[in-house]
């Protein structure tokens, strides 16, 4: 009994310390306050973007949208419809600052209201108006048509998009993040997968790889100029940021990092989950193994402890 009381004291002080230096300290350190010192709490909206709703009563026509999409492929590719990109990644970055995304999966990964408003007013939907003021234009021009045309395009992209479950986590990452962010553990660069090349045995050099690396460096140059700095590699970001941070930040980058150059990318819930799945694959690949082995190791020590208890009992039985 006395031992249990002592244990209770030890556990109490341990837990108080733990609570203070972990949950409580992290809350206090990441608290956001306004100019008057009042705490700002960002309300997560579950990737629904309430201020980017489609207007009521408007219904898109995919057929019309298909015709209108001719305006998109001037810059974007739609590979699933055999529409190649007009320029390669490097040239695109030269022209726009960043390579525009392929639109094959757009209808499945992104919120429809977001896509609608993206076409009407890109800087607003992307929440980067702070970067494009005083006459500076966003590289994607707002479309000329009316609400109906925008709705038609949204309907078109939804009609050609594969079902969400057919899109791999990696594809979601490429579309939403991968043109600004590399992922070296996933062997991904901003201009695509690192190619499988071979060294020349005679020289020990790999010229193909060197050429590719040079291209990546050139692309990053342009990207860094456009964004203000090179966006970070996301290989292991899943362990560097909390789940809570990732959720809020991807839904609205300004909520966690006011003034950041990162746009709101408009992922819907499924799209977000896929991106996170990819980041876990590269940044925390041991998760499934931990979950598989954990119970066995702990089970082993429970049995170990029970046996040790019996041994202790037998050794101490005639001592008092």
């Amino acid at each position: 009994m006395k031992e249990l009381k002592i244990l209770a004291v030890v556990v109490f002080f341990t837990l108080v310390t733990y609570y203070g230096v972990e949950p409580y300290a992290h809350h206090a350190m990441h608290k956001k306050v306004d100019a008057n010192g009042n705490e700002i709490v960002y309300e997560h909206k579950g990737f629904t973007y309430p201020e980017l709703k489609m207007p009521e009563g408007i219904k898109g026509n995919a057929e019309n949208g298909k015709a209108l999409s001719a305006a998109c492929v001037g810059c974007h590719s739609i590979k699933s419809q055999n529409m190649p990109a007009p320029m390669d990644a490097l040239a695109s970055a030269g022209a726009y600052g960043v390579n525009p995304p392929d639109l094959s999966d757009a209808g499945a990964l992104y919120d429809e209201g977001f896509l609608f408003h993206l076409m009407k007013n890109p800087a607003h939907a992307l929440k980067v108006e702070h970067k494009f003021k005083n006459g500076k234009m966003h590289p994607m021009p707002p479309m000329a048509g009316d609400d109906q045309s925008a709705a038609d395009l949204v309907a078109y992209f939804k009609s050609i998009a594969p079902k969400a479950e057919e899109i791999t986590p990696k594809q979601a990452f490429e579309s939403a993040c991968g043109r600004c962010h590399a992922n070296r553990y996933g062997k991904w660069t901003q201009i695509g997968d690192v190619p499988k090349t071979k060294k020349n045995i005679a020289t020990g050099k790999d010229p193909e790889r060197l050429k590719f690396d040079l291209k990546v460096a050139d692309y990053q140059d342009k990207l860094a100029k456009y964004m203000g700095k090179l966006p970070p590699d996301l290989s292991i970001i899943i362990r560097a940021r909390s789940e809570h941070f990732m959720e809020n930040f991807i839904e609205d980058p300004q909520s966690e990092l006011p003034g950041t150059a990162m746009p709101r990318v408009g992922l819907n819930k499924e799209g977000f989950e896929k991106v996170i799945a990819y980041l876990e694959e590269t940044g925390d690949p041991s998760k499934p193994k931990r979950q598989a082995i954990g119970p066995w190791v702990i089970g082993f020590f429970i049995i170990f402890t029970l046996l040790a208890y019996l041994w202790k009992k037998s050794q101490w039985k005639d001592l008092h």
Partner: protein
Amino acid sequence: MAHFDNAFPFSEKWLDQRLAINTLKRVLSTEYWIPKNINFLWAMGMILAATFGLLLISGIFLLMYYIPDTSKAFDAVNYTIMSEVGYGWLWRHIHGVGASVVFLIIYIHMFTGIYYGSYKKGRELIWLSGMLLFVSFSAEAFSGYMLPWGQMSYWAGMVITNLFSMGSLELNGIVEWIRGDYVPGQAFLGRFFMLHVLLMPLLIMALIVLHFGTLRIPHVNNQDGEEIDFEEAAALWKAGRRKESKVIPFNPVFLSKDVFVMGVYFILFFYLVFYHFEFAMDPVNFDPADPLKTPAHIYPEWYFLWSYEILRPFSKDVGLIWFGFAQVIFMLLPFLDRSPYVAPANRRRPFRCWFWLLLIDMVTLTIMGKLPPTDPTYAMIGKIAAYTFIILWFALPFITMKEKLVGGKK
């Protein structure tokens, strides 16, 4: 001249003639006497030894793949070990969790010693060698923290090495000498790598032997601080009067309890390794070191927070002085405690209050050490706690000088 007859090679007799294994076994285990009047806190030493063992073994595996190069270290740890090496993630999580938990056990072990007065009347060297172990574990932990070369490695390395400029003395030459550069870089990483995998572990192992050695003559203390005649008690035990004897042999009686407590500990330990390792692996350190980007908050691991909070609330030079004070003052405990009695704190007044105040104060310092000092409430609590710490230590000789034991001397 020793006697060697025709014993079968490697049989017990053969080994005993050459190595005196029976004597060794008797001296080190079956006739190494431990008081019977103890509780599970007496198992913390073995738990520390076991945790050190886990750190050593996991460290050996990690060392096979770690590369002490500023451009490769981060990925060697976070990619090679975590995704390419079979079970590399398990070794790393054991190593990371072990490094944090070992300090929890060290603190429990220390406060057990303080509570039961196990640092005086012949046990001063146990305490001092233990404190040397604490210092070397701290150096081991800090040097290990540099190795992943993440943001917190880099900036903690920057901040801690800066302390050696001694405030207004501005001895920047010493800082550069330690770093081998103006800022933490390749030379710095290589040096801390060497410290972490060679010099500090050697020192720790030597100190562990010394720590065990210091226990031998004064023996382990007991729950009542009772002075036991170990020879008499051992004779009773050997005569089969186990109930009357006040001692038990280390092996198997004490060990059976140790192993049980260790089992409970390992359940908790591996629960942390598999399901709750984040507390020991700070998220900030999963961002690669970036000399151009200072993290918003720089803080040490939890086990250094209390002394950090004695540095932080004061102006530069004053803070450094009290920080230095906090580093050495525990060493002086056996000499600052003027009371002749060895007894649990609850029987020593007013030492009892001193003990609980110190414990609560150190928990407070630890928590305040991580909270942002920009908040005036936290800063104020931290400052009061720092003053309390200092006052407690200055008061110790005076409050122990005329101590009376509750219930008289047993």
